[in-house]
């Protein structure tokens, strides 16, 4: 249908977006790769010698690297488990007829709109503070010693904060998917004598597969780069207990001013993110087709 004229017009219309995104993807990445081969520290001026893969060697053999991988994995995994399982449960609950359904949905959705720095600081100061936090009052009320959350169980605390922010997202997506489930299919299953459990396993769960896939994929992309929540609560500590890969690269450049080392870390983060993306896409790829 499209004539030659509209085709070339279409190409012109797409050019700015494509060029901008291409430049945004390639230029910084190429520069990062280049920096990663240099002995380049902002604190030591002078020539930046080419040192091959030495920065990578230092970065990978540093125990902080392995530690940051584990922290990243636990953070992403922990938050994913809580939000997906919790999200399914909540979506099933909210899919029922409820008095004031609209308001309930708004309340559940609200944490997603809270900016990460605010969410983290509310939790840090007003809930997890061992003296004045509400959780401390709650613990004392039931006769327990208040917990110093961000020192005793720092990573777990951050998982809670992040999961609180992302639970609404998972719930909303899964609820939207649930609502497109054919009512007649559920009724037919009931007439065939299917109980609640088998109805869930054989009808609801398969129907949700695509939505669950999307939730896992998108949350993984964002959670791999969790940063603000760590910066304002623990600064990666105590020690390196909450230093994920993103935070490790950040501290290499902003705190140690080591451009070469941080660049090597950045490239490793890009490679790992791509591996994860391919792995997740393939593992659940079927669901994204169509």
């Amino acid at each position, binding site marked *: 249908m499209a004539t030659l004229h509209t085709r070339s017009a279409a190409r012109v219309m797409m050019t700015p977006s494509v060029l901008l995104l291409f430049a945004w993807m390639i230029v*910084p990445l190429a520069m990062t790769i280049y920096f990663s081969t240099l002995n380049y520290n902002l604190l030591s001026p002078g020539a930046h010698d080419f040192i091959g893969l030495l920065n990578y060697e230092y970065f990978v053999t540093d125990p902080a690297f392995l530690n940051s991988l584990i922290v990243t994995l636990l953070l992403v995994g922990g938050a994913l488990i809580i939000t997906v399982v919790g999200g399914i449960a909540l979506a099933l609950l909210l899919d029922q007829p409820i008095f004031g359904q609209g308001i309930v949905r708004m309340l559940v959705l609200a944490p997603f709109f809270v900016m990460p720095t605010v969410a983290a*600081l509310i939790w840090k100061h007003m809930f997890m503070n061992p003296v004045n936090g*509400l959780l401390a009052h709650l613990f004392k009320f039931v006769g327990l010693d208040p917990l110093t959350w961000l020192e005793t169980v720092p990573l777990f605390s951050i998982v809670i904060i992040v999961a609180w922010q992302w639970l609404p997202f998972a719930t909303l997506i899964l609820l939207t998917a649930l609502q497109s489930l054919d009512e007649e299919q559920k009724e037919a299953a009931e007439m065939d004598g299917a109980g609640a459990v088998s109805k869930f396993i054989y009808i609801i769960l398969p129907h949700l597969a695509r939505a669950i896939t999307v939730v896992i994929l998108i949350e993984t992309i964002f959670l791999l780069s969790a940063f603000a929540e760590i910066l304002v609560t623990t600064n990666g500590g105590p020690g390196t207990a909450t230093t994920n890969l993103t935070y490790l690269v950040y501290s290499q450049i*902003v705190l140690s001013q080591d451009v070469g080392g941080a660049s090597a870390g950045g490239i490793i983060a890009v490679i790992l993110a791509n591996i994860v993306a391919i792995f997740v896409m393939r593992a659940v790829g079927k669901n994204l087709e169509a």
Partner: protein
Amino acid sequence: MARNVSTRRKVIVSVAAWAVALLIFFPILWTILTSFKTEGEAVASPPQFLFFHWTLENYFEVQSRSNYFLHFANSVIIAFGSTILGLIVAVPAAWAMAFSPTKRTKDVLMWMLSTKMMPPVGAFIPIYLLFQGFGLLNSQFASRVGMVVVLMLINLPIIVWMLYTYFKEIPGEILEAARMDGASLAKEIIYVLTPMAIPGLASTMLLNIILAWNEAFWTLNLSSVDAAPLSTFIASYSSPEGLFYAKLSAASTMAIAPILILGWFSQKQLVRGLTFGAVK
């Protein structure tokens, strides 16, 4: 409604749902309540829920101490600036892909999506050096412009995708009909396409403003003191001195209220935008 639901069951489910919803919402509610307390009451033991001396003092205090409105203005500039810039770039692209698709359109879209998978630290170091080296961090104007551009770029794939899924739903026959009736291209765009595209444009804009307002990696690292948006300004409460719960709550309430309200209006579009049209 296809099925009869007993009132009793509905009551039980409602109670459960309300309980869970209030629990999830509670941190926000508690922050709003605390913002109206005095600093002393904010840390009182046992905690006070409703029976305290309600005051607006914290809101005035936050403004007078730290020039809150400046940071609010920065957030508005960055969120709206990056969104409008993004729309200007993305509308023609999404338009072209929706109305004259080629074999490669799907590939281009997938490629755009894939740029979203690149972690920010992959691009962070050169940008950081650029901001440092050229003194962008010392200039309010340059820092604002830098953040507008960076946030536009990171959200561009989402804008293109979302617009594409909306434009795709506009039936092509309508265009042909208009053309047959002798409408010029300009008239076609003004009278036929624009009215049909406005809901999609509005939703895309709304979602993007929310995302840009809450962004907290680039803004934390690229903002000069006087260009800092709210997400960065609030971070300064990370380790303050003295009593500050009520002031933190007031600052937080003002920072999240506009987006909370916008967000509640855009629930549906949110699903579509954040899942790249995969879930509707």
